[in-house]
Structure formats: structure tokens, C-alpha cells
């Protein structure tokens, strides 16, 4: 806020606004305008996903079946709860309850951090299982029955084999979805994982930025910035961004994690 702030009743607003109401509306509108660009940002990659999923449904189903959705389900719950806590923070700021604001901001930060922790664990498991797109190939020996001098014998042919395909086959067998491996082309399943890492990665990037802003507001709250009640609108603008990040996740869950068949028996972290 400008130093040359005007006074509307007992409340301050910047000199280029006619009233506090106009300033508050502009803050909200500015964030909504930014969110419009964000919708189109995520819309681009989701439309590309839609095209390829329509072209290769079996391959995307196999890729999704290789993922473990438990972490994603827990993360959905964490994000929904953080949407509640940030909104409670807005209410506390509006009521001039600075201790309450700091409490709810911290709760949101902790929930967001827990989300990222689960996500990091999920990425670690995916990499450990070899579910990462790669061109790497190994030479493996494939047994073949041949007849030599009238006797049946086994010989081993050396053939090139995709590392990713073997890892995918192993994970799908563990999840009791071998039939999906028979139907899919592992090279196309790598396309699913490309989308998986890009879409969740962009979402994680937004989460990290959001957490940074939340920490900033937490510090500001401690420094007395929100002692001016009308400044609750900045917490509200922050909450709009945070809700949007939650909204993106609502679509990532069915598009990536629940696209293939899953059973409760194979859920684990």
C-alpha cells in the first residue's frame, strides 16, 4: 500500500482508488485474472493428454494401473483440508484475530508440506520401480527350443529388450494386471508417464510457490501487517490461488491415478 494512503472512514486505501471497496474488488479481480491464465496453462497440457488418451486408451490404462493411488487419495484429502484452513485464515484476518490467522496459515503450510512429502515419496517409489520414460535397452537371453541332430535342446538367443518394458511388466504383474501388459505398447505407456511427470510436476511447482507465499504471509502476520483489518483481502487473494491449486488436483486424480483398474488390496505407500 502506498504511503500516501487515503482514509475511507477509519480504513486506508491507496491514492489511485476511489474507495476501499474499489481497492478490495481490484485485488480480487487481479487474482482472478491471473487464474484465467492459469486455467489456460493447465488446459493446454490437459487437452494434449485428452488427445493421446483417446488415441491410446489401453496404454494409458496400463500406465495408470502401474501407479499406486493411495498417496494421491491421501493427498486429495490433505489439499481439501488445506482449502478449509486457508479460508478459516481469511475469516480470522477479517475478524482482526491475528493469532487465529497465524494458526490457520501454519495449518495450511503444514498440510501443503505433508502433500509434498507424500508426493516426494511417490516419485521415489516410481523411480525405484523403474517407471520413468527411457530409451535404454538391455541385451537379454531368450530361451528357444531347437532340434539338433534329432535331439531337442534349448538354446538362448540374445535380443535387445526395453528396460522400461521389463520394469512395467514387473509392476503390473505385482498389481495382478498382467493382461494389461499384453494389450499395451510399452513405448506408448512411456507417453502416459511423460504426462504424469509433467502434470504432477507443474502442480508441485504451483504448490511450492503457494507455500512460499503462505510463509511470507505468516511472517507478515507476525510483523503486524494484518493488524489493519482491511488487509484481510490479501489473505483472500492468496486463498483464491490455493483453492485453484486444489482444483487442478481434483482433475489430476481421475485423469492420472484412477484412469486404470485398481483394487483396494494393492494400496500401499
Amino acid at each position: 500500500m502506498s504511503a500516501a494512503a487515503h482514509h475511507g472512514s477509519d480504513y486506508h486505501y491507496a491514492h489511485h482508488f476511489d474507495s476501499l471497496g474499489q481497492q478490495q474488488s481490484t485485488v480480487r479481480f487481479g487474482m482472478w485474472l491471473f487464474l484465467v491464465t492459469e486455467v489456460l496453462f493447465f488446459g493446454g497440457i490437459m487437452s494434449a493428454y485428452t488427445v493421446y488418451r483417446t488415441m491410446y486408451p489401453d496404454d494409458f490404462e496400463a500406465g495408470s494401473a502401474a501407479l499406486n493411488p493411495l498417496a494421491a487419495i491421501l493427498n486429495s484429502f490433505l489439499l481439501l483440508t488445506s482449502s478449509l484452513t486457508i479460508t478459516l485464515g481469511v475469516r480470522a484476518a477479517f475478524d482482526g484475530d491475528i493469532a487465529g490467522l497465524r494458526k490457520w496459515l501454519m495449518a495450511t503450510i503444514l498440510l501443503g508440506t505433508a502433500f509434498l512429502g507424500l508426493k516426494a515419496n511417490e516419485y521415489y517409489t516410481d523411480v525405484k520401480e523403474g517407471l520413468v520414460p527411457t530409451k535404454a535397452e538391455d541385451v537379454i537371453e531368450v530361451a528357444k527350443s531347437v532340434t539338433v541332430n534329432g535331439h531337442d535342446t534349448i538354446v538362448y538367443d540374445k535380443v535387445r529388450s526395453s528396460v522400461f518394458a521389463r520394469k512395467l511388466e514387473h509392476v503390473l504383474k505385482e498389481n495382478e494386471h498382467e493382461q494389461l501388459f499384453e494389450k499395451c505398447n510399452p513405448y506408448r505407456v512411456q507417453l502416459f508417464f511423460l504426462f504424469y511427470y509433467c502434470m504432477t510436476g507443474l502442480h508441485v511447482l504451483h504448490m511450492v510457490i503457494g507455500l512460499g507465499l503462505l510463509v511470507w504471509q505468516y511472517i507478515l502476520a507476525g510483523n503486524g501487517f494484518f493488524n489493519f483489518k482491511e488487509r484481510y483481502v490479501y489473505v483472500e487473494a492468496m486463498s483464491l490461488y490455493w483453492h485453484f491449486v486444489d482444483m487442478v488436483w481434483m482433475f489430476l486424480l481421475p485423469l492420472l491415478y484412477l484412469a486404470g483398474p485398481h483394487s483396494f488390496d494393492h494400496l500401499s505407500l
Partner: protein
Amino acid sequence: MSYADPHDPAAAAENYANELQHPPPQIGYLATVYAVLVGFLGLALIVGFTDFGEYQGLKVLCALGVAGTQAAVLALYMMELRKADRVTALAAGAALFWTSILFGITLTDYFTRHLGAI
């Protein structure tokens, strides 16, 4: 929303009073919205874990329908879009409009390629 003389303290106070007409929601209201959102998450999981057999396309539509409704509840009731002024509502509408063009034109291309060159 119209703005009166900025130098008139009475008008400024009235504008602030207008601002106070839409305070952030109360805890009970937020808890209800949260419960509805968690309910939709449960519904999304039921759809996700149900075997639709040959009707995978229907599963996708159901899952996206649940996600879309959940997002709409979040936007309208937690982001308070239903109380937004006209220009904000226009911005949210523009997001849907341009996204529909993005999807519409992209998918029209890919879904009609099999019809052959004209």
C-alpha cells in the same frame, strides 16, 4: 458497483459498508462446504475403483463429471464466485470460454482425422 466522490468521507464510509455486506463465510458454512467436497472425493473414488468393463469411456465421463462438479462447488462456495462482482464473474466465464475453444478446436482436429483428407 458505483463509486461516489472519492473526497467525500461519507461516501467512502458507505463504500466500506458495502464491502462489509459480503464478509468471508462463517465456520459452520465452511465446514458444510468442506463436508460436501469430501463427499465428492468419496464419489470420485467409488467411480475410480469400479470396474466399468467395456465401458471405459463412460467411466472417464463419470469421473470428469464428479471432478467438474467438485471444482464448481469449490469455486462457487469457497472461492465465493457466487458473490463476485460482474467483472470477476466475467473473468471466470472467460476462462471457461477460452478453455472450451482450446479443447473444442484441438479435439475437432484429432477426432475427424480418420474421416480422411478432403
